[in-house]
């Protein structure tokens, strides 16, 4: 899976918008949207919100967690703890990126938020690398991935799996071939 696909999935999340047009309910396969009343907040998927925003048909109301104070708190917690902390949204990174790219004028303190989310992301990815490292050095058989988001898993998956495969190959070449089956199962 590449990041674009993850982003695509993230676009299914809902976000509040304040439309500046009026439209009756829209009946879509994925569910009904609207009705849209000018000036009245309504929940729509991110893809629609961004589309409307780009056509200047709405203002986006940033999600509650997209707030400097809350993110700071989260970042501090994330830095303090060794384990992964729960994130505000399963697609926090993608949503931040999408919303800040297209609707930064509707989000107060957009730059700070961008930095904070990047901080949280960096902290988490660093943790992920660290745990991947210890996973390999200690030759563990399984790992817990609590509170990891799809995007985070996705960043490390291809590299991780490839390298494990590679290591497996190297190991199986070193060892008598009889053992290899058992090892293979480990991974």
């Amino acid at each position, binding site marked *: 899976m590449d990041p674009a696909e993850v982003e695509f999935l993230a676009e299914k999340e809902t976000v*509040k918008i*304040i439309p*500046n*047009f*009026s439209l009756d309910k829209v009946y879509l396969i994925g569910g009904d949207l609207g009705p849209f009343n*000018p*000036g*009245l*907040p309504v929940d729509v998927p991110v893809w629609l919100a961004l589309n409307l925003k780009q056509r*200047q*048909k709405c*203002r986006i*109301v940033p999600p509650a967690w997209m707030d400097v104070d809350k993110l700071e708190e989260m970042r501090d917690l994330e830095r303090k703890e060794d384990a992964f902390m729960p994130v505000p949204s399963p697609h926090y990174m993608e949503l931040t990126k999408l919303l800040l790219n297209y609707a930064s004028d509707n989000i*107060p303190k957009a730059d700070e938020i961008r930095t904070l989310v990047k901080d949280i992301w960096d902290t988490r990815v660093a943790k992920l690398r660290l745990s991947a490292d210890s996973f390999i050095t200690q030759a563990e058989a399984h790992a817990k991935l609590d509170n990891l988001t799809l995007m985070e898993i996705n960043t490390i998956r291809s590299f991780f799996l490839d390298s494990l495969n590679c290591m497996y190959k190297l190991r199986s070449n070193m060892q008598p071939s009889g053992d290899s089956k058992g090892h293979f199962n480990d991974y």
Partner: protein
Amino acid sequence: MPCERKPMRYGHSEGHTEVCFDDSGKYIVTSGNDGDVRIWEGLDDDDPRFITVGEKVHSLALKNERLVTAGSSNTVQIHTFPDGEPDGILTRFTTNATHVAFNSSGSKVAAGSSDFLVKVVEVSDSSRQKTLRGHEAPVLSVTFDPKDHFLASASCDGSVVVWDIEEQTQVISWPLLQKTNDVTNATSLCRLAWQPAAAQFLAVPVGTSVHLYERDSWNHVSSLSDDLLTQPVNVVAWSPCGRFLAAGAVGGLMVVWDVSSKACVERQKHEKGFTVCCLAWHTSGRQLAYTDTEGRLGLLDGLATSSTTDSAKPAAAVTKPAAKDYDDLFDDDDDDGALMDEGLSDTRSPVKKTPAAAAAEQDDVDDEDFLMPSTGRIRNRGAILDDENSMDTGSLRLSQDRLLDDRDDGAAGPPAAPPPSAPLRPAYDGPLPTPPQKAFQPGSTPAHLTHRFMMWNSVGIVRSYDDEQDNAIDVEFHDTAVHHAMHLSNSLGHTVADVSQEAVLLACPATDELASKLHCLHFSSWDTNKEWMVDLPKDEDVKALCLGQGWAAVATSALMLRLFSVGGVQKEMFSLPGPVVCMAAHGEQLLIVYHRATGFNGDQALGVQLLRLGNRKRQLINGEPLPLSHKSYLSWLGFTAEGTPCYVDSDGVVRMLNRSLGNTWTPLCNTRDTCKSKSDHYWVVGIHENPQQLRCIPCKGSRYPPTLPRPAVAILPFKLPLCQTTTEKGQMEEQYWRSVLFHNHYNFLLSSGYEIDEDGQTQSQKEQKELLLKMFALSCKMDREFRCVELAEMMTHNVVTLAIRYASRSRRMALAERLNELAMEKASHLQEEEQKQQQEEEEEEPEYSRRRSGFSQSGGRDGGSRHTQEGDGEVVEEEEEEEEEEGEGEREEMNGHEEDAEECVEPRKRANPFAKDPVSPVKPSLTPIAKMGRSNPFKVQGSSSSSQPRMSNILDKMTSNRKSVPLSSSSGKPNKGPVLKPLAPRPKTKTQSTLLQMSGTKTASKKEKSADQQKQAEAPPPTSPADDTENKRPKTGFQLWLEENRKSITDEQPDMDETDVIKEAMGRFRTLSAEERLSWTERAKGQPGDAADLKKRKRAAEGGGAEEKGQAEGDGSSAKKKKAVDPSSKLAAFAFGKN
């Protein structure tokens, strides 16, 4: 004799600003961030001379016609004064200088700089300069010893140093200040001041107090402080006589002390609470100029410090503060209120009590007087009231001041004035009048805010910005389809606004020169002039305004209401019974709320007028009192989107006009119930009845939202404050009455000729029926039969039949019996009404009645008001009744039967001879379909029958009575007319037949419908009266006439086709006199319709076997019908029989 705080004026652009007087005291000289030095001849000087010195001026000093400025280019420059000629550069630093000061003779200038140095330069010879080194951070300020021996400076390194100028050494250094790295970060500018003349004290602002250091000994002799001083002192300045010391603080407080007594002589607050950054005394000592960090210039005039009669002074010093404290207190109160509303009350409110305490110390008797109002609820409320409404000083303050004035007048200026209320209070102990609330625009935030909403309604938002950079108004529309956003400069100072789909209306109060103006941006105008402006007469201010559809209303301070068209034509005007509070408009309606009288004990006495403008002008509510919660005031007024007047009071109670209960006001909900904290409020922006929505903005810790960040609208539900809404019964009652209440607007809209959302109406009617039945079932379960009957009385006729069935099924015979009586009563009542209606109709002209019945058809079908169902509805009911009876015996055949009906629809339509009739294309035949949202026009009948299962399911669920399905299916047809026609079927059918002859035949829609219905059951048997109707119906007066006259028409115009002939005939028939036409219709009545009979047979043949089956059924039913003298009782019996 309090000093006068002159209103502040714009001096320079935002930023550090300095001020000084020239030696003669004639000019005020200021310098600011814009790099200009301005020379004002007085505070009112609108065109000051200016000298451009550089990009910025950090500091300014003036003496002996020399103007020394510390500019942005790291230099200290000299200019001549007042000519402003450059006179060279005095000295340079490596960074900018921060403060410059002259010595007392004006021969030397001291300059402190951000490069840690202090330089002392001879004005006459700039090469002779001394540099004082030793500070470890930028220098904040410098001051000369009047005797020219020492120099004091303060620095960001926290030290205040006294230097010996000659020796260039530090005499003493005190670590007094907070350390910072730069002047801009310093909490205080720490402008030092050396006492003039005597040169005895050096005043140093330290924190919230001012330290006095004695010369030579350099001891800290005393500190001056004040209870109100809660923020750091920025600047101090000695009066020219050296007896008084003025201090200006962060937060805008200015205090003047008498240094010898350490008593506070004067206490003033900056009108906007900005930081005071420079103070300058006039040489006379009577005036004190000050500037703030926002570039504004202010002046305190008439300071008591000029008189130097020492003996009188102490006494005066005591009394004056006392008097002053009153004013201060009130001033503060206003400010507090403002701050409180901005959510800063926590920092300010403790302060509020301190002056009261201070005053109490000074004068024990004052004690109560001060504490009472400052803590009392009324007082606080008053302050809030003020802020929300005021453009000028608060009403409450006025009343308080009046009290004070009374006291002053009465006491005739004794040196120590007695407290005001001590003598007053015994005189009057009754309820106190409430200060009347100020006029306001619903949906606006207080006028004193620099950024505020002037209007937020369902159309758009008007915001105003009034800061130094920009004085502008932004108009933004929720729906950009209305108009794009607008940005206007607010040069006139508009304070009230309204916005509608057609225009933006703005108004400003009168100023000294200009009259109050009304400014309309009529953006929907189709010509090129999109704007108009009207001046109000002199001494008349706009207090409130609103925009309706095509008109604007303006209420003025002269108790006048003026109407304008939206294009600017002046229209009616009338006097208001009292000062306006606010107004709202919707369509043709205008709602005005005004002060009816003086309220007491915190209550407002408001009156309300509701007018209808437009073509049918009339007053709907004339000056009735507006009910408000106790001790609250009006906070929002408006209409629902559907046009029902509503308002919200400051306690958060939303009330709506109940037009069906004699224009009473019903509370809908209390917004405060949903607030989490006591200080949270909801700021209402709109109310919708369908769907039921209260649109408002949640405000945390305040009553209104800030403009930034942009607030988001939330939706609250309504909840009528009925009793015991936790119980099931209470809940249902609440739902029922809410539904009824929110249903009212349909009747209103209908009566005023607007289109209504029919789906919504049927929906809410259905909801009400369901709720009634649920409540009925609940009461049944609880053995409350009396209550059941009461509920049944609220039901419509067909719901009562369901109730009867429910009662009988649950073996409550007595109840069923009673309900039966009730049902009969209702039916007879209905019938009476109908008959009345029909009689009226018969008297009317045939054409009119036709039109009317055409209308009633659509109305009746969609469940319009009761009296609209007549004629065709009648027939349908008749039919349904029969169907029901059929259903009794041959329920299984029901479905097939209905299918037949559907099949027959189409051929019948075609075969219908009147389909070609020029009158029949009158659209109503199709309107019901369109309204029902059906796309297939041939499903007219199908729609009614196919909707049966749906309805029956719902009703069935409610009654949980499976067995009644077939019955309810017929009764649940969407034509809301009663299903049963229990009384005297014969006479009714008679009237009906005449009706049908006269009108029914001509309206195709009606005919189709009734024919379709009738065909099912009673096509052939000639004995049935209904059948007579059927056979006769096609023959009308017009037809007979047409038969006779067709020839003449075709002769005249032989090339006409059939429809044209009929059209022509129609026109001719219309030109006949009423009597003639009547005679034709009489003839038609008397004559059995042969032709129609023929056609009928033809149709029957087309209908095929199904028709025959229908006939057979019809036979059976008609036979039964003869027996059924009272169908309703029969139904009851049937229902009993079911069990």
